[in-house]
């Protein structure tokens, strides 16, 4: 059963905020809210861009209402105290009633959710949980209910991006935005009145257009191109593409380690498409087929620098986890590797989980 907000065990933050005035100004300029996440991922350029992109991202094929509901459900399924609390408070601020939010959380659907919305909630839970492994059939079920192909892909993309953001927050143990949560709670009556207007404004800000830069050719060109190609035109697709390209271009961790981390998550979720892509990346780094197989079977590799070796068994634990346990393991990792490497590893692990979940739907 999915946990409720007060049931999630949450540890002390792994990383301190990194106050960089230039980045803070940039955040403000680009509409970011300077959240606890933004400050703690600031030392990693690609990771902070991805997090900012998710916070300010737009949708073109689904409504802001579906976006809000899917963000809440995904955060709850991933037992991310930070995102779950923030999504919940945000929905209250937009005038959603406490009973509506509670019914979504408790998976009790009454007349205020139609069949399409119920299917969306179930799809979010299945994809975020991936237990049992979701497949293309689940995406097709959304199409049968009347969602357009773009809408179904956009839903899947935002759940995957949600899984990414939830993992970044969980692995760092970002402290919950208690100030914001408390403020919304204190002004609930006011938000119940002003909520519809705020919801309208928020929906307007969230509304995007087809992104010409996210063409199929452009998406197919980079890392994990075949997985991204079906997302052509969606405004969120470039967030995923930039994150993948940025993560593999970064030199904090070796490229071979990162590709192996993707391959391990792919094997863990039994996703052939993702594993094939990771093998292609590993082959480009000089790994032979036998070496890849041996590394995947043993979660070890002689080609991985010694300091990064412990990332291979750890990344497997990020697929399905108990929050307190994975935070403890990540803390041990940070003590051994240092903050810069562990921040990068958290980003790569979160991205691998998001990418493989997306890839499972195109198989």
């Amino acid at each position, binding site marked *: 059963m999915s946990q409720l907000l007060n049931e999630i065990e949450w540890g002390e933050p792994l990383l301190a905020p990194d106050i960089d005035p230039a980045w803070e100004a940039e955040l403000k300029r680009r509409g970011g809210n300077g959240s606890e996440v933004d400050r703690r991922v600031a030392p990693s350029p690609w990771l902070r861009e991805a997090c900012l992109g998710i916070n300010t991202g737009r949708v073109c094929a689904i409504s802001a209402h579906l976006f809000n509901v899917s963000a809440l459900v995904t955060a709850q399924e991933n037992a991310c105290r930070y995102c779950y609390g923030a999504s919940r408070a945000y929905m209250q601020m937009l005038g959603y009633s406490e009973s509506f939010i*509670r019914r979504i959380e408790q998976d*009790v659907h009454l007349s205020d959710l139609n069949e399409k919305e119920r299917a969306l909630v179930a799809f979010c839970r299945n994809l975020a949980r991936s237990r*049992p*492994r979701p497949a293309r059939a689940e995406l097709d079920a959304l199409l049968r209910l009347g969602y357009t192909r773009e809408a179904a892909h956009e839903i899947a993309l935002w759940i995957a991006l949600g899984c990414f953001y939830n993992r970044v927050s969980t692995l760092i143990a970002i402290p919950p935005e208690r100030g914001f949560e408390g403020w919304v709670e204190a002004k609930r009556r006011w938000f119940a009145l002003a909520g519809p207007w705020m919801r309208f404004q928020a929906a307007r800000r969230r509304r995007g257009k087809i992104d010409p830069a996210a063409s199929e050719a452009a998406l197919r060109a980079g890392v994990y191109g075949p997985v991204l190609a079906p997302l052509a035109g969606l405004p969120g697709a470039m967030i995923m593409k930039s994150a993948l390209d940025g993560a593999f271009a970064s030199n904090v961790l070796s490229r071979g380690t990162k590709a192996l981390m993707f391959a391990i998550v792919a094997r863990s979720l*039994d996703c052939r498409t993702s594993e094939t892509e990771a093998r292609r990346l590993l082959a480009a780094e000089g790994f032979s087929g036998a070496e890849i197989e*041996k590394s*995947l*079977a*043993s979660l070890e590799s002689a080609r991985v620098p010694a300091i990064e070796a412990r990332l291979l068994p750890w990344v497997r634990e990020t697929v399905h986890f108990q929050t307190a346990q994975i935070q403890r393991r990540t803390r041990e990792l940070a003590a051994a590797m240092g903050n810069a490497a562990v921040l990068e590893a958290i980003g790569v692990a979160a991205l691998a989980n998001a990418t493989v979940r997306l890839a499972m739907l195109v198989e």
Partner: protein
Amino acid sequence: MNAAAAAWLLGGALLIACACAWAWLRRAREAESLFAETRRKLEHLQREFERFAPPDLIEQLTDGRGDVAPQRRQVTMLFADLRGFTSMCDRLDPGLTVSILNDYFRHMSGAIGRHHGHITELVGDGLLALFGALESNPWQCRDAVLAALDMRAALVAYNAELAAKSLPQLQFGIGIHCGEVIVGVMGAGELNKFTVTGDPINVASRVEGLTRDLGVDLLVTEEIRKALDTGFRLRPMAPVRVKGKPEPIQTYHVET
């Protein structure tokens, strides 16, 4: 109709509308509290059932996903049995015996859970743990051996606790084997359990029995050895014939 009558009529209609809204709100609140109460009960039931079956299985059953239909799967089985515990039971107070056994199972369960396994059966002082039975696990053999090594370390720690209380120390034997088995909920009438059946489980049990004859605490079969990497130190034992197998089976003692 004069103005006074119209006002009365309007007032009456408003009053009825308010009464209906109030009744509707009250029923909605009642329904919500009923749902909350049902959820609390379901959650309590789920937590209680987790004492008897793996949490993932309970989750599947409560979600009504129907994924526990019998199926063939590649599973790794770990049998562990305490040595000389039956004779120890005769000497110790029953309450103390149960307390020692429960603490032992708690330590072992922790070690198994840390490596993605779950205990499916406790029979007397023995246990059966499965790896990869509920969902595909490409690292199940490695997980089972790591769990066994963790169990060995946990037993050392637990024995230190027992020694500090001047209580007798425990020794165990562990046998690990893998193979394709049928997994599902099996049983009759009111007694059902999630378990596995097939020849590999018999082999795993026989291998655990061999630990006694060969004087070691942890044995794995050739199938497990093939799935392991070079990071484990394995010592080959002399092939031994076991009941139900025409050919002697090759086992390995896992040293580290």
